[in-house]
């Protein structure tokens, strides 16, 4: 029972209290770069999840064998290996998704989220909590990335397109907000603007006035 509560807390931490994007401001590079389309955001979320899961498991397993002084280079080698493996697999089995994510797949190696969780969590915990942490953090990262992409894609193109990542000829497009189109949101400047708005909303939510508890006499 205690374990269940602990795992629930780890998930809650990843999704809400320590959300990698909204609270820790980690992984902003892929957030800005691939959020032009929801398809890309879903693909990137899965890629980050796979790398984070595999690296957390591996680092947790080898944590007692790794000397403290050389832990960072070892973490980076492990993460880079998994990123290269995921990139090759995507190139072979989801080539269209690989093409649209482009350079941002190898750049997962330098995503602070992956190294951050390896250092802060996986290197200090057992395998199962590390897996749960990877799930929670990926969920937190993926949810924000997908919502951010939804907003940018709808405002910049008025449409929402979903494609089968294994066969992009199979896709469907929904036309939404036909009256509103701001192309700027599809560009880098729009991404920064949307990010600023999102951080402002998050800050407003965190700093909202809290109701004072009535003293019980």
């Amino acid at each position: 029972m205690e374990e269940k509560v602990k795992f629930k807390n780890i998930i809650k931490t990843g999704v809400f209290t320590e959300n990698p994007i909204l609270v820790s401001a980690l992984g902003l590079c892929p957030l800005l770069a691939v959020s032009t389309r929801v398809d890309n955001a879903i693909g990137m979320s899965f890629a980050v999840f796979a790398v984070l899961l595999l690296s957390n498991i591996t680092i947790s397993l080898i944590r007692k064998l790794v000397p403290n002084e050389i832990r960072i280079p070892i973490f980076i080698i492990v993460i880079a290996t998994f990123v290269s493996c995921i990139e090759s697999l995507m190139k072979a089995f989801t080539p269209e998704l690989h093409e649209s994510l482009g350079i941002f797949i190898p750049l997962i190696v330098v995503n602070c989220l992956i190294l951050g969780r390896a250092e802060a969590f996986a290197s200090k915990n057992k395998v199962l909590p590390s897996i749960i942490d990877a799930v929670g953090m990926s969920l937190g990262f993926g949810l924000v990335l997908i919502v951010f992409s939804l907003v940018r894609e709808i405002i910049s193109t008025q449409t929402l397109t979903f494609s089968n990542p294994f066969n992009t000829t199979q896709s469907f497009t929904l036309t939404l907000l036909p009256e509103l189109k701001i192309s700027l949101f599809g560009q880098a400047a729009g991404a920064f603007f949307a990010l600023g708005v999102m951080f402002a909303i998050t800050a407003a939510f965190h700093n909202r006035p809290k109701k004072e508890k009535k003293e019980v006499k």
Partner: protein
Amino acid sequence: MKNKFLKYPLILAIVGIICAFCLAIVYWITNPIINERNIQKAKEAIEELYPNVETVEDVSKGYDNLDQYSISTIYDLTTGGEKKASAYQAVGKGYSGDIVYLIVLSNEEEKIIGISFISNSETSGYGADLIANEEFVAWFKDLPFNKLDKGTDLSTGATKTMNGIKKSVTKVIDFHSTVREDK
């Protein structure tokens, strides 16, 4: 102290070897699939660029200096029993990495018949958009060799990608005009 001096590099070397082994396995699984897909894509692209083609023959093995011209594959395209055009799969250097493309050159006139981009790692919104731009691809259609230097009127934010492609196409034309005189 001496112990650590030997121990740490040894641990790093072991981790490196294990990781290299994992990568080798993944490469061994995925590489044939990636190659097969690239060849299939090239064949489809040739038929799209040069619909009159009757037979496509890979003649790359007859040349050993292809790397010098960034060419990976050469195809002879036959129409009505004559080799009227040649297709080259080549690699240009873009802003973020390699741009793999297929270009069909006429054997009868000094002109490009068409170009098709197979894969790239360019940045979305810049180089990737240029490569996907139909106007840019159409500019190469029936373009005489001597007009390649003059460039296109297209205004893009991807100068490095554009120059990388043009430089590579110039090399392919050079190969086509000089090395393949017997074509």
